[in-house]
């Protein structure tokens, strides 16, 4: 590692620890810990939400994918962006009006059932921990590539830092680390985009023309179909992108960090601008990498293309830009995993311990203490699993996390808010159908079973041939919710629909933490 890289790298660590130090002074009670006291502005939350989407997977992954497979690499950008409309139109406002700290809170606004809360919390834990392991394993490999630190040391470093941010600074630190990183990433990408564009004489036509001869794909670089040859599988993948985001717990909890539904909606709209501009810049970065770095060098450094963006920085910007982009990628990883730790800890401390085991009879102090302990627990488990999974191909974990979010969470969120007849049995069967079908189908899919050794977890032919089952599991989630509802005799929840409908549309009785 060069002195320059080391300096920037330590700079990032120092910056985030400073943020944590100041945040810790503001983190006194449960609402500070879980939701930063609900005091974020629309701009701040908009950047934080955008930051969750500008993960290492999108910055390094999409740039690399576009460079390697052209248009097919861009699906992820489109799906992630349109997902914001689902969030804006259907989910964000009712969520803010009904919930307090967690996703399970919102569903519990309608059903007092502990079973419902328990399964909702379990889904949050499963999604967040799967996501975190995928991120940590990816992080370990990336930091090794970027900075030359050993895998185990990288995972441990990221793991320890994320734990420190969360236990001392709670949601305040988690949000501000995310905001800071979002600004750095947008800035870094803008500089790279500018240089790439200048190499094409600021001419879009020239860029699209040049890239048709720059890669072995030739003209097909600009066309769909270079990677995804199975149409149904590709549609299914797109479905998971557009529906999954609105069910991702670590994203949804961000809407509790603002004071009301109006601010929540504004933050989604700001996010669409940040993230939209960012995704457009990934086109320039991907085209730039394909043109100026070259396929061979990208694949040599990492077969998945994850080094395309840093190598582009090195090629067109020199050592400093390379070190800067690497440091920003590191910050990106830190920011995303700390959000995941916080979300998992909230589900455990607030839902499982506070509301289910202790029946809500828990003091602020106990609540925060348990949340901190849970953060450490979640972090330790994830770090151990990530160390154990080093040599595995864990791509299936991200597919699974997004699939469960789309199939188990989204149907239940929508039915809770919009379906009058829906009841707690329906909520339980819906979540179980979505969760189990996602897990089972992914376990049987080519992500896990692959005839080529090393491509999946096991070597062999998959029983289910699609790599993304969302097109089946989302309907299964809805069918579960429907069947559970009509087959049960429970009618007691019907009166709560009126309450949920009234509150979600007027903001009456919104839990605001502004009174301390």
């Amino acid at each position, binding site marked *: 590692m060069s002195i320059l890289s080391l300096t920037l790298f330590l700079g990032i660590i120092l910056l985030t620890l400073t943020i944590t130090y100041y945040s810790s002074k503001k983190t006194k009670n449960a609402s500070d810990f879980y939701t930063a006291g609900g005091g974020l502005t629309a701009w701040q939350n908009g950047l934080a939400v955008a930051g969750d989407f500008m993960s290492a997977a999108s910055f390094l992954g999409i740039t690399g994918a576009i460079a390697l497979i052209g248009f097919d690499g861009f699906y992820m950008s489109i799906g992630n962006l349109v997902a914001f409309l689902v969030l*804006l139109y259907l989910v964000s406002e009712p969520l803010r009006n009904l919930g307090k700290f967690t996703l399970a809170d919102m569903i519990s606004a309608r059903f007092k059932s502990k079973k419902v809360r328990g399964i909702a919390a379990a889904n949050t834990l499963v999604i967040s921990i799967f996501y975190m392991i995928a991120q940590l394993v990816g992080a370990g490999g990336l930091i090794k590539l970027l900075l030359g630190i050993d895998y185990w040391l990288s995972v441990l470093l990221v793991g320890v830092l994320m734990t420190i941010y969360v236990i001392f600074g709670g949601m305040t630190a988690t949000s501000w680390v995310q905001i800071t990183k979002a600004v750095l990433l947008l800035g870094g990408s803008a500089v790279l985009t500018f240089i790439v564009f200048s190499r094409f004489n600021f001419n879009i036509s020239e860029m699209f023309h040049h890239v048709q001869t720059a890669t072995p794909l030739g003209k097909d670089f600009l066309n769909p179909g270079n990677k995804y040859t199975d149409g149904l599988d590709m549609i299914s993948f797109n479905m998971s992108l557009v529906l999954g985001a609105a069910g991702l717990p670590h994203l949804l909890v961000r809407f509790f960090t603002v004071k009301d539904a*109006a601010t929540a909606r504004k933050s989604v709209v700001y996010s669409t601008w940040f993230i939209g501009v960012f995704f457009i810049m990934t086109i320039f970065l991907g085209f730039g990498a394909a043109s100026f770095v070259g396929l061979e060098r990208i694949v040599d450094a990492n077969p998945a293309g994850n080094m395309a963006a840093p190598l582009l920085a090195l090629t067109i910007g020199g050592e400093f830009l390379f070190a800067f982009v690497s440091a920003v990628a590191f910050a990106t990883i830190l920011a995303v995993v700390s959000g995941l730790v916080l979300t998992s800890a909230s589900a455990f401390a607030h839902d499982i311990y506070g509301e289910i085991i202790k029946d809500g009879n828990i003091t602020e102090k106990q609540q925060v203490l348990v949340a901190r302990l849970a953060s450490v627990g979640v972090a330790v488990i994830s770090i151990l699993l990530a160390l154990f999974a080093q040599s595995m191909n864990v791509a299936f974990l991200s597919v699974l996390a997004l699939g469960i979010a789309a199939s188990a969470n989204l149907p239940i969120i929508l039915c809770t808010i919009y379906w009058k007849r829906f009841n707690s049995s329906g909520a339980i069967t819906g979540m179980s159908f979505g969760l189990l079908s996602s897990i089972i189908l992914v376990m049987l899919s080519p992500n896990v079973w692959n005839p080529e050794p090393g491509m999946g977890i096991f070597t062999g032919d998959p029983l289910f041939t699609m790599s993304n089952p969302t097109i089946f599991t989302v309907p299964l989630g809805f069918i579960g919710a429907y069947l559970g509802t009509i087959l049960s005799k429970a009618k007691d929840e019907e009166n709560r629909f009126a309450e949920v409908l009234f509150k979600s549309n007027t903001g009456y009785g919104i839990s605001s933490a502004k009174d301390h």
Partner: protein
Amino acid sequence: MESQAKTRHSPSGHDSGNKYRQLIETEEFKELIQRKKAFIVPVTLFFLAFYFVLPILAAYSEVLKGEAFFHITWAWVYALLQFAVVWLGGIVYIKKAAKYDKMAKNILNKYGKELGE
């Protein structure tokens, strides 16, 4: 903080259920829901349909592979149109929502008594 903890755990018994059932039957509330539905449902269906047309065309047709202009293929043009839809969808929603906010505020003002405030 303590005060909200109490509200949240207050028994939401028969009476409070009745209260909300009456409130959602008021003219003002019904109008709010109707207006929201008339806007949100069609727009959501539109952007989801618009979204899924891209992978469907990509999978089962060749139309996206032709050049549109400036050496750019239709696939990218369609993809970027989705960006425009998202940004436009955001702006329109904010405008509409400001009206809903006003209606909701009126409801809360008018029926504050029933809500026990």
